[in-house]
């Protein structure tokens, strides 16, 4: 009986072990995971476009099936888990740093990890032409004497109780609220035909006869484009402003052109695109802190960049440099660098160029623990004081842009902004607002000129 019990125990243990581990054949003594390259599109260190579909499959070293748990992380947070699978097809939707982790089920083996990135810049590699400006040139316009233009927006909304959407075309009517001749806001009417606005086709100014040749559509404006057909500026181009409102990035729009004679009846769709959506521009700009400043007290100017840190992280930005020029009747009394980047250790510094009344700001990211201070949307805070005896009513500030190498000699360092990644290569896409900021003392805050 004892021998039977022993036999049953061994049999039980054998069954237990056999049922609880992966069906790896006994002729496969090494349990490592081998990625099946013929079925895998995921590549270590690769960059993908948003909405990419990625596939990964694996096997044992002898080519047999191997079940693994699959984990997908974005910025360190788990976003997808699959249990006991032979391969996975998954999509990556958003920008960021991703990590895939494969753990064999029931087999003692080191997990396999893949790191990759998703950026909208990668999408741009294969999307020429285009961008955040749509410019069109139509020779047919040179023959028309009148032109109306209508705008439409594509929209959709969920159809309740289904997984479908209702698609529609919204009319976008241009309105001129202050009657200054330039349209300044949209009136949007769902499922309607847009009102047309008239675009001047021909006129004379600057001793030149101009004729409409094309249009330019931007995020914040619409510009008709005129060609000089006779006179002083024959052969030149001239822009005018039709509207100071434009088109959101990433949203499909359409325009319809027609003339009274019926020689033009032209619809065209367009979508402005960038590496970020409208409202998420990774922009550095100057911003006055704390309301109207006084001549007698210190005041603080911020280089604010509420969306830049996240964008910079997507592109592994490790170095930031920019220069602020200020009124020479001010003295810069302090520079403070808040904790700008999440989970990153940052080193900072600055150099004042007293002769040019400019300060260059430097920020580097190095390995190590993040600072304990709360994350700030401000890249730097500059504290100024009006120099004694300076009769100052206002002061101008700007983030420096020097287009001429000649001007570089005025600075101890290259004056233009620079952003670099972990390979010390340049990061493209961060925006610096160079338009000067004017601050008035005693009667109002900052005003961008």
């Amino acid at each position: 009986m004892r021998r039977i019990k022993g036999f049953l125990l061994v049999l039980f243990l054998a069954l237990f072990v056999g049922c609880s581990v992966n069906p790896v054949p006994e002729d496969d003594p090494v349990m490592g995971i081998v990625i099946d390259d013929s079925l895998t599109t995921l590549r270590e260190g690769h960059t993908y476009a948003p909405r990419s579909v990625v596939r990964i499959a694996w096997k044992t070293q002898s080519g047999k099936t191997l079940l693994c748990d699959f984990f997908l992380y974005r910025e360190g947070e788990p976003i997808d888990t699959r249990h006991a699978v032979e391969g996975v097809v998954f999509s990556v939707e958003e920008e960021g740093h991703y990590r895939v982790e494969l753990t064999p089920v029931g087999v003692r083996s080191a997990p396999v990890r893949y790191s990759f990135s998703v950026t909208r810049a990668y999408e741009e590699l294969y999307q020429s032409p285009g961008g955040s400006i749509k410019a069109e040139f139509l020779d047919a316009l040179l023959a028309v004497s009148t032109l109306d233009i209508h705008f439409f927006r594509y929209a959709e909304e969920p159809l309740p109780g289904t997984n479908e959407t209702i698609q529609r075309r919204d009319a976008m009517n241009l309105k001129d609220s202050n009657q200054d001749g330039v349209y300044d806001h949209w009136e949007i009417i769902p499922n309607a035909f847009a009102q047309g606005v008239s675009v001047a086709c021909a006129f004379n100014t600057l001793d030149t006869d101009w004729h409409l040749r094309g249009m330019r559509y931007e995020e914040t404006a619409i510009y008709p484009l005129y060609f000089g057909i006779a006179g002083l500026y024959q052969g030149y181009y001239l822009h005018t402003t039709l509207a100071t409102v434009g088109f959101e990035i990433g949203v499909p729009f359409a325009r319809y052109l027609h003339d009274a004679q019926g020689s033009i009846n032209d619809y065209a769709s367009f979508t402005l695109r960038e590496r970020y959506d409208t409202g998420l521009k990774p922009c550095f700009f100057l911003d006055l802190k704390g309301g109207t400043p006084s001549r007698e007290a210190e005041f603080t100017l911020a280089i604010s960049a509420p969306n830049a840190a996240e964008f910079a992280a997507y592109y592994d930005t490790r170095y930031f440099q920019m220069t602020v020029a200020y009124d020479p009747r001010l003295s810069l009394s302090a520079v403070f660098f808040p904790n700008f980047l999440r989970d990153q250790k940052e080193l900072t510094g600055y150099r004042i160029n007293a002769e040019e009344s400019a300060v260059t700001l430097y920020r580097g990211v190095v390995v190590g623990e993040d600072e304990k201070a709360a994350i700030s949307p401000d890249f730097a805070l500059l504290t100024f004081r009006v120099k004694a005896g300076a009769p100052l009513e206002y002061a101008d500030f700007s983030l420096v842009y020097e287009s001429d190498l000649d001007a570089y000699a005025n600075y101890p360092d290259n004056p233009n902004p620079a952003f670099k990644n972990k390979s010390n290569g340049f990061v493209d896409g961060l925006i610096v607002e160079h338009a000067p900021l004017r601050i008035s003392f005693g009667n109002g805050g900052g005003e961008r000129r």
Partner: protein
Amino acid sequence: MTKNTFVSVLLLMAVIISFSSILDESIGLSEQISQVLASEGLNWRASPNIAFFSPYVEANPRSVSELLNRINGYLPLNEEARYQWLSEIVGHSTSRMNTTNDIILSTYVVLKPVTQTEASFFRIEPVRNQQYYGSCWAFSTIGTFESALAVQALGLPEGNRDNRFDYSERWVGYHNNNTFIRLASNAWMIQDEDRLNGGNPYHALFNSIRYGEMEEQNAPYAQIFISTEEGVPLPTSAYGAPLRQSSKTALIPSARDCLHFGYTYADYLNMIKTALKDYGSLSVTFAVPGDFGNYASGIYTPVLPLSESYHAVTLVGWAAASELDDISLNGKLKNPPVPIIKNPITRYTYRDFTLPGVPQHATDLFWILKNSYGYLWGDAGYYVVPAINAAQYAGEAEIGLWMIEGFDMYVPLFDSDEKHAGDDLDINRDGLVDQNDFGDLIAKIGSNQPSDISACDIGYPKDGRITGDDASAWITLYNVRHEE
């Protein structure tokens, strides 16, 4: 100008407007040019270059100049008379697109001139053929990219001699930029446009940094070698193909600018030579004279006025006058190779027919250039021009726009960890590498003290200055050495 030369030039102008086929015109042109060359005693040979012109006959250009205007597609940054704008749009707005000029400018560095003593230095690199597109700017960009990669990344002074690298000019054209948008924004914004005709290495080399270059096999120019289409789609092989990025771009300002910045004539020449020798062949530009298509060999100086076009080529070397009879550029086609000139000279005198008054100049230094018209043009695809002399550099004599010194020159830079093997991050020499060193480096930016420069000039290339480029290099090296 002598009476004979004057008559010859008049005849030459008549020839240009009297022939019906470009081959006939080229034959007539070369005969007339040869007469001027003989009467002027100039040391270059003109040819109808039938093998070069023949493939274009079917495209039916009305004249040689029309053909050259098409294929010489460099768009000058500041002289685009054809696209003048009266714009009420002022740049510097946040309504931007892919890139703005502030970021592009930050990718350019100026090299420190180092005295170069060699009488001659040159590379024989692969000659490509741009065919019927105005894509010279893309070929010039790739020419310098391939050469610089070989010199800097592989340590091959001979550059891309054995066609080790072959990158895609078609890919460069795919990421050309929209001229109208750029000019309407006062050269502030650039937005990509798929276009081979007309471009500029200034922007193309920025794309070498932000996008990288693709190997020719993944986007072959051969597939589109003759076409009037613009916006040619990429082949499927291009999607996901590896891209090789440069780190930044070295800029040699034009002679006029270098003088203005305080560089001496020797500094300027040494800056060009240093770039050539230490970093690779250069992308250069010039305005095209009407006789350029008929060059066959020797020292090219124009005897016809400038055409309407600009051209970008690759500067591969220099030679002293005394060396020209010992250097052959055509060894791949001729056996035995034929030297640039037959008889030795120590100095060369010529007159510039593109300038009012046809002034005379003399020089003892010459540039060796690689064109992108294929091996059947010129001296096996190459040509030689005089360098500007000291008087021209000083502004005492004018520089003809056909001379490459009238424009900026470029070469990509390829940084790597290996190039910093000897760089010490312990800026303050306290035995520790820590954040204090970063702070100390920032504090020394702009310093002219040799000891400071010695401690802090760690960026690539070492430019003899302390700038943010050194600070970013410090950050990168710190992270590499602390195993980011």
